[in-house]
């Protein structure tokens, strides 16, 4: 048989990265944090994650199949990732039906109503989480005590942020090392700053994300906290407060995994920095003066809404065009 010639314009080779491989890498990067949560909170973590993933995938499949009548998009793993991230933002003892509602909101409302992957203006997992936070505030903010033996109850079952906000503990008394290791109450995925950082490094090494967003978010939070500490008299607080804020709540999970979501973050390096600083500052404003102890989710969603504007006005450095002229 004669050879059949195939034709397409250049380039004729393609990088090994695909949507699926990127999503897979993010999932791999979440493994350390997940294992840590299993250790600290037990098998409930597995239950919550499984329910969230299955319901996210199912909702995506059903909508794609029966409403869009389009190709099966489950295999690109984006729904799986949304499920895992949603689960990471939940307490480990949350009832199963709340998880399913969260999944329906995340995929059905925040993602598919806009046309599916790549078109949603807001991070689906965060929309799901914030919806649940507003609809079921009690279930969403009561966290089980870690089953890990090293755990010493310093916060009376509340997250460190909530405890500090309620002035139950002083920032200076908090065991920062325990927070770094993740031995504290909270949504099971957001504890364990060290494990999350490892995931972030893996993603940087695999070129899944660039450094801009995480560094901008965490950096601006640290600077903000530093200034706050300065106004409160300085001293040891000047390094304790920034460290506390970086380790507490959803700072790490948000900065490394949530804010870096491709679809809802800006396209240029400069834009990413602006976006990251915006998230950091809004988070700190909410934490410092807002009604909620934690502001990461709100900050990311707020900055998501600014992303199109940033894309329109922040352009990359063009080759051969002198900006000074």
């Amino acid at each position: 048989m004669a050879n059949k010639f195939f034709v397409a314009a250049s380039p004729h080779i393609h990088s090994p990265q695909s949507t699926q491989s990127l999503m897979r890498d993010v999932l791999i990067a979440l493994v350390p944090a997940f294992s840590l949560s299993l250790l600290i909170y037990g098998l409930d973590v597995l239950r919550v994650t499984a329910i969230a993933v299955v319901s996210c995938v199912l909702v995506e499949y059903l909508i794609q199949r029966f409403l869009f009548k389009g190709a099966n998009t489950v295999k690109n793993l984006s729904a799986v990732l949304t499920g895992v991230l949603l689960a990471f933002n939940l307490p480990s003892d949350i009832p199963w039906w709340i998880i399913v509602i969260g999944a329906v909101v995340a995929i059905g409302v925040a993602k598919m109503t806009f046309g599916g992957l790549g078109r949603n203006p807001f991070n689906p997992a965060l929309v799901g989480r914030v919806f649940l936070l507003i609809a079921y505030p009690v279930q969403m903010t009561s966290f089980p005590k870690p089953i890990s033996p090293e755990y010493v109850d310093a916060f009376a079952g509340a997250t460190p942020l909530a405890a500090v906000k309620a002035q139950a503990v002083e920032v200076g008394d908090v065991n920062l090392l325990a927070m770094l290791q993740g031995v504290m109450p909270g949504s099971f995925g957001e504890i364990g700053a060290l494990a999350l950082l490892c995931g972030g490094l893996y993603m940087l090494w695999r070129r899944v994300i660039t450094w801009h967003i995480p560094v901008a978010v965490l950096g601006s939070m640290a600077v903000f906290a530093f200034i706050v500490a300065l106004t409160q008299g300085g001293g040891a607080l000047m390094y304790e407060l920034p460290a506390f804020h970086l380790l507490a709540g959803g700072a790490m999970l948000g900065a490394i995994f949530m804010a870096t979501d491709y679809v809802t973050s800006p396209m240029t390096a400069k834009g990413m920095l602006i976006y990251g600083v915006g998230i950091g500052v809004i988070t700190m404003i909410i934490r410092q003066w807002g009604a909620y102890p934690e502001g990461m989710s709100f900050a990311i969603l707020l900055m998501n809404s600014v992303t199109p504007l940033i894309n329109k006005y922040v352009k990359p450095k063009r080759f051969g065009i002198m900006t000074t002229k």
Partner: protein
Amino acid sequence: MKTFPIGGVHPSDNKQWSNTKPIEVLELPDVVNIPLGQHIGAPATAKVAKGDKVLTGQLIAEATGFMSANIHSPISGTVTAVDMQVNGQGMRQMMITIKREGDEWLPEIDRTTEIKRECNLDSAAIIAKIKEAGIVGMGGATFPTHVKLSIPNGCKAEYLIINGVECEPYLTSDHRTMLERGEELLVGVEILKKALGVEKAVIGVENNKPDAIAHLNKLIKQGKYAVTVEPLKVQYPQGGEKQLIAAITGREVPPPPGLPIHVGAVVCNASTTVAVYDAVQKNKPLIERVVTITGKELKQPRNLLTRMGTPISKLVEMAGGLPEGDVKVVNGGPMMGRPMINIDSPVTKGCSGVTVYSGKEAHRVEVESCIKCAKCVSACPMGLEPYLIIRLTQKQMWEQLEAEYITNCIECGCCQYSCPAGLSLLDYVRLGKSTVMGIIRARAAANAAK
């Protein structure tokens, strides 16, 4: 190590398939087809007719105006046709067909391999000789070299940059040329320096060719040539003219109609420089070149010294024939080469390689929806936003495209290479660019008419 300022990608270069294969002389073809338009600018005008006898190296088509190039017969024999023939892309193009009878060269061409270093010609005479020999950029752009060397009024050349980067993956023809004809290359550099009247000459070589860098440095030391070799970081498109100038001089060429000479640089490909040596010192016109034939499933990838007009199928045959199953044959490298459907089409002046892709490689990856990952933006060496450009192209918003500097695109393919969704970014960018260029030209013509 120096490199260009923004963007770029790192495809696996796969040069190991052919970079150790010495240049072999391909046996002469029985029939050659010489396209009249194988360079940028106006096609040449045929000077022979059916039935004419020609010698190797004889002028068969003359440059039509300044922006054009002479074409010489690569073999001796009889002209059998001057007619439309099917080219590699299946389009019909005017070609001169010559049937070979022996290999009788024009007597004035010096065919010895002895190095001739002294050149007593002045700048104008050198450029005239280069023009006479029909030399064009052999890296693939096929820009007539004599046009490049003719510095427009008000500009001054400061740097001569020799492009030995060969950033295009797979290809090794420049690499082998630098290794095997290094001495000629260095004499060619001296001739070009004289033609331009510049002091500084730099040979840019990507760092994945340490043997070429060492070899050239050795020759420079031995022969006391006033030229430096600059090892460059391995990053595509390091060999793009604008990228290379930025890497070596730190200056950025402004968008079209900006030219390299506006920042005082003239870039010349390594193989072209050797051709300049041949033309000026040996009276030999551009009738043969080194072509790399390579591909993952080819039995014998090679570097072949090929006469112009040789059917590409002959090279494929030398490499062991096409692999079974689906294939894609590309004239050029994997990032910028043109796909072919007719492999009997001829080797031309700009054909630095023929690459063959088989099986899965012959197909494009599956297209998914854009996830706005920004990889195209960070990969673009020109600081453009490909994701936005293709959206504007599909909506035919030409004014906005112009404002987004689409004309600055060098069509290097970094965006599409890096797109995880497998979008046909470059296809649409190219379409948008050519449309916008057409609009700009029409506007310029309208303004000129006023």
